[in-house]
């Protein structure tokens, strides 16, 4: 890919006491690119983000922003903006003052910022006026204009979130960090704010790193998704790549709701993959036991195929989930909501939708999907 400006992380390692939180993390976010850092809580994604922001310092590795090494630089000098999970608005300042803080810190000297005295110094008023113009400029598209005089306590959760976003983008950051910004919003607000964040990202053109444990957010918003587990980035690719071609079992298991069906299968001497003694239509160079991964939506009821017993069903509205067993192995399939109830049925799947994983958990290359 060559050197990209924007955000580049190389070999980042971090330990808290005896606990190694990050292992050799590499990640690059180009300017204008939206990368979601997806992982369960405790996987180290927030720590990585805090290292980028300069709140924590990495034990090993380098952080580069716009080509410059900022690994040990002070947070204030990095031109990184961050939206915190709990908004982190200053409770004693109005919305307008909150948004203006990053500008005041950069454009006014310490003396000019002093109470009373600052207002008397030459230039302060002119700078403050342009600051307020900038605040108005970012507040307008977020619908904050009528709320600028309010304190955070007088704002709803969604409004606070917008103020936090405005504060982050008011100074045209080169890196834009968001730490689970939607986790405190209700479901309806979440989807509108999702679009707004993508919109803001487009306007700023910053390298955006978005930390989340919610795969729906990651898959819908991001240009690329970096899947992180136990302090390592396991895979980084477009949403389709990480969902359809997971690098290994852990990524496959983490993405998808309900989770992917992982079935014990066997590759015979001829390389044909068999599930419960029945040919799947998949071929592989591998021999012996394998794991066959099939997404719930790739399984379907058919007149013939693997005999299955339905054990439970969940009605979702637009679809239903059937819990069934193929032999002794439990599977979940997503079928149309009107599918007739029958405890005994047959299941089939298109071999092109199936994933094969070797004994080491890595996905087998292209699954060698030859049709039998």
């Amino acid at each position, binding site marked *: 890919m060559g050197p990209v400006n924007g955000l580049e992380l190389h070999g980042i390692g971090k330990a808290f006491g005896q606990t190694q939180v990050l292992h050799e993390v590499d990640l690059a976010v180009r300017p204008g690119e939206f990368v979601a850092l997806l992982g369960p809580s405790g996987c180290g994604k927030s720590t990585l983000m805090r290292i980028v922001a300069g709140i924590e310092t990495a034990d090993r590795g380098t952080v580069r922003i716009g080509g410059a090494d900022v690994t040990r630089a002070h947070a204030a000098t990095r031109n990184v903006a*961050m939206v915190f999970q709990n908004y982190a608005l200053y409770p004693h300042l109005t919305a307008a003052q909150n948004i203006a803080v990053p500008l005041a810190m950069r454009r006014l000297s310490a003396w000019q*910022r002093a109470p009373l005295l600052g207002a008397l110094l030459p230039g302060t008023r002119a700078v403050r006026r342009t600051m307020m113009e900038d605040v108005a400029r970012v507040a307008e598209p977020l619908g904050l204009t009528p709320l600028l005089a309010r304190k955070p306590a007088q704002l709803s959760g969604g409004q606070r979130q917008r103020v936090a976003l405005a504060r982050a983008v008011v100074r045209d950051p080169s890196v834009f960090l968001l730490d689970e910004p939607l986790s405190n919003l209700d479901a309806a607000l979440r989807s509108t704010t999702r679009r707004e964040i993508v919109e803001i990202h487009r306007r700023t053109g910053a390298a955006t790193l978005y930390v989340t444990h919610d795969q729906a957010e990651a898959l819908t918003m991001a240009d690329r998704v970096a899947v992180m587990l136990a302090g390592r980035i396991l895979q980084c690719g477009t949403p389709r790549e990480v969902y359809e071609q997971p690098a290994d079992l852990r990524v496959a298991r983490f993405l998808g709701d309900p989770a992917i069906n992982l079935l014990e299968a066997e590759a015979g001497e001829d390389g044909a993959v068999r599930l419960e003694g029945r040919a799947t239509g998949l071929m592989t160079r591998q021999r012996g036991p394998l794991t066959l991964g099939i997404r719930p939506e790739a399984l379907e009821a058919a007149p013939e195929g693997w005999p299955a017993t339905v054990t439970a069903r969940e009605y979702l509205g637009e679809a239903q989930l059937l819990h069934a067993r193929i032999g002794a192995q439990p599977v979940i399939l997503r079928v149309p909501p009107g599918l007739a109830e029958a405890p005994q049925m047959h299941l089939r799947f298109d071999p092109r939708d199936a994933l094969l994983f070797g004994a080491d958990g890595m996905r087998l290359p292209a699954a060698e999907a030859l049709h039998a």
Partner: protein
Amino acid sequence: MREGGSRGEALAGWLLTAPAALAFLLLLLAPTLAAIALAFSDYELGQWPPAWIGLDNFRELWMDRGFRTSFVNTLVYVGIVAPVSVLGGLGLALLIEGAARGRTFFRAVFFLPVVSLTVAMAAAWQYLLHPTIGPVNAALRLLGITGPAWLSSSDTVLLSLAAIGVWEGVGFNMVLFMAGLTAIPRELREAALVDGAQRGWDRFRLVTWPLLGPTTLFVVTISLVRSVRVFDTVAVLTRGGPNKASEVLLYTMYTEGFTFLRLGYSAAITLVFLAIVLALMLLQTRVLDRRVHYG
């Protein structure tokens, strides 16, 4: 509606509040009312019945030069002890909070004066400040300075007492500030960092000081009230002397009431004291409280 039930509940409510209400009436309200009544009488111990003399006690207080000295001394003492112990407590709390190690140790060291007995500690101070054998003056002598007679010169006695007062109060304030500091969300300090508050002073102005508002208000009020109440160090170390230079409000009240047995006059001083404390409380709850809570 179950009439009986709600009446039973009301009865239970009254019964449950009765002990606290009774304690309040007997231990707080009744003595206060008695003191107020006494303040308008010429009651002296052993003389009965007391006569109602209206505002005479207060008129006498107004003319009494001893009382005026005592009043001014108290103001000076409060004027030194309250601000120094508040700022000192804040400074110590910030230093200890920012320290990499030894937090528990320093917290304990500075809190020690709060839990130790002032009267016992006063003896130690008397030794420390002794003009000839005291270590303070010995140290000054090493620098070629002749130290004053800290507790027996009218120029320095109030200052010395104020220093002891600060020493007593600063640890208490520090602990309160430390509690206030831990209540500040970590995310806010981090937001300040990311927003460009590069120097510690910027972060203090942007986050710490405003968010410590409620704590500071409480600490200021407590410190004011505590220093207005100064009594034990004066009683043990100077007895108001020399020449009334360390006479303070409560000590004057004590001597009038328990040495000269003029309980009516002493009660009038108590009322002045109560009025000051009440005014401070009102200032806290009515005026300042609104400016430090952002919720």
